[in-house]
């Protein structure tokens, strides 16, 4: 069975919010209706977003790291928001595992948002229905787009390729391989929701220069040793030199 998901590499995310604006742009222009935006340039701006990039500081100064953390619906494999919905508006698709809201059935009771521990559902205060990330379901199957563009808008927008999109149940997909090879993990595993979206943990990056990188271990002719090593008294390049 297919389970589409995003895999987000926290090593690469620079917190530019391109995925946020691209998501908003795509999803406010679709057939499902606009996403609210009140006082966008005013004192107290507010609106509906499917995707947010948050920033956390990890560690004690001066040994701190800034972690940019994009968060959208995780399309849980056991989504707690679905069974609580009294109308069946909130559902998980059998064919690709995307959790969706049927805007024509939603009564706007907000119970599903209460039932989501991740806070990724936002009620649209003008349309009065619950909204959330659709994994750009109106994009990824659109055959009028070139095959390479049949990805969620956030993935297309990411300038550092921090976002991978794919079927995490297919062990050969790039998303699955990234999870397996880079230790991809899920958020709040304590609630047993089994989120489909995974995050790739930060890892230390350092350049190690070893002795043998500078001088060959098997230096049979001792050629490396004969590299020019001018005596202390010999003229340097700054002076006029013979060689």
């Amino acid at each position, binding site marked *: 069975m297919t389970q589409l998901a995003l895999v987000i590499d926290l090593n690469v995310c620079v917190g530019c919010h391109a995925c946020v604006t691209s998501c908003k742009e795509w999803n406010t222009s679709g057939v499902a209706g606009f996403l609210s935006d009140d006082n966008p340039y005013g004192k107290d701006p507010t609106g509906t977003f499917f995707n947010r990039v948050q920033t956390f500081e990890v560690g004690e100064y001066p040994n701190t790291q800034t972690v940019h953390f994009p968060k959208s619906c995780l399309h849980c494999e056991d989504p707690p928001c679905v069974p609580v919905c009294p*109308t069946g508006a909130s559902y998980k698709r059998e064919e690709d595992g995307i959790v969706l809201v049927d805007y024509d059935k939603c009564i*706007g009771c907000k119970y599903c948002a209460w039932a989501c521990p991740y806070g990724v559902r936002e009620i649209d205060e003008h349309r009065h229905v619950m909204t959330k990330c659709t994994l750009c379901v109106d994009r990824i199957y659109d055959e009028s787009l070139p095959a390479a563009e049949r990805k969620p808008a956030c993935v297309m927008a990411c300038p550092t390729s921090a976002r991978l999109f794919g079927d995490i149940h297919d062990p050969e997909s790039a998303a699955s391989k990234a999870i397996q090879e880079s230790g991809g993990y899920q958020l709040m595993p304590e*609630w047993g929701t089994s989120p489909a979206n995974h995050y790739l943990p930060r890892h230390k990056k350092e350049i190690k220069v070893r002795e043998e990188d500078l001088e060959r271990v098997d230096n049979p002719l001792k050629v490396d040793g004969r590299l020019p090593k001018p005596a202390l008294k010999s003229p340097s390049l700054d002076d006029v030199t013979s060689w």
Partner: protein
Amino acid sequence: MRPALSVILLTTLIGVGQGLFVALYTVQVFDRIGLIQGPTSPAFYPLGCAIALAFLAVGLGASFFHLGHPERAWRTATMWRTSWLSREVIVLPAFMGCVFLYGLGHYLGWTQVPILAGLDATLIVGAVGTVLCTLLFLCTGMIYACLKFLQEWHTPLTVINYLLFGSASGLMLAAAYAAIVEPGLVRFFAFWAVGFTLAALLGRSASLIRNAHLKPRSSLQTAIGVKHPRIVQSSQGFMGGSFNTREFFHGMSSAWMRSVKWMFLLAVFPIPLALLAAGLVRGVPALLAAAFLVQYAGLLAERWFFFAQANHPQNLYYQRIS
């Protein structure tokens, strides 16, 4: 969580209606068994049912204000296999139907005609109504108790307290009602009102103590999957508010929370009991009515506190604007 007035009104008002109906039916059953002397006024049951129905109807009406699309409310009856909210939406009107039939039966005098095993129609409808009433308490409580990561709610005490508070307030109202319509039954209702109020005090104290000692299972470490012991949010990702910052934070100080807690503990338990005792001793119906009103006001505060106290794990993601 931010308490919604519509939900506070729904849960407290239907609780009163349910409690009052069960109080009326208990009188009939006890009368039938011969434990007490039943009411003499023919208006006692029909009028009581009308009052219970009024509470249930106003509560149901208030709940519509919680919905973004009330015109689609009929759809809520479809997912009863999985959703406690859907179950409540089915049980509440069914229960209201039973209360209506029960009152109508008494009004039309069905009590004189045995239809099944020597029992008359009102006794049977009342039994069905009592079962539905219990189910309704279960549904209302489970809507909150089933959300496992709202740890303050995820306990059988939630359901038990809904049942005890509903019954206690309904019996308080029954005592005040009887003082005006059927004075002979005042002591009977008062006895049960005191019993349920004390039981509710036990149940609510237990949940308050439990919640005071809760250890949150989620932390910033599990929320973003970084193991370091010191993590501070430096930006939630937007400058203004959003649904997530409005719906899940009550925005009140801890001093306010403490005072609401003591206010409801006083208004739901000792004050109504004192007023009830004074009303019984002096025989003043107004004191009994005051006992109910004070307890109901206290229950509004209790329900506010119940919602506000729940700390949603999503709040971990919304700590700081920038």
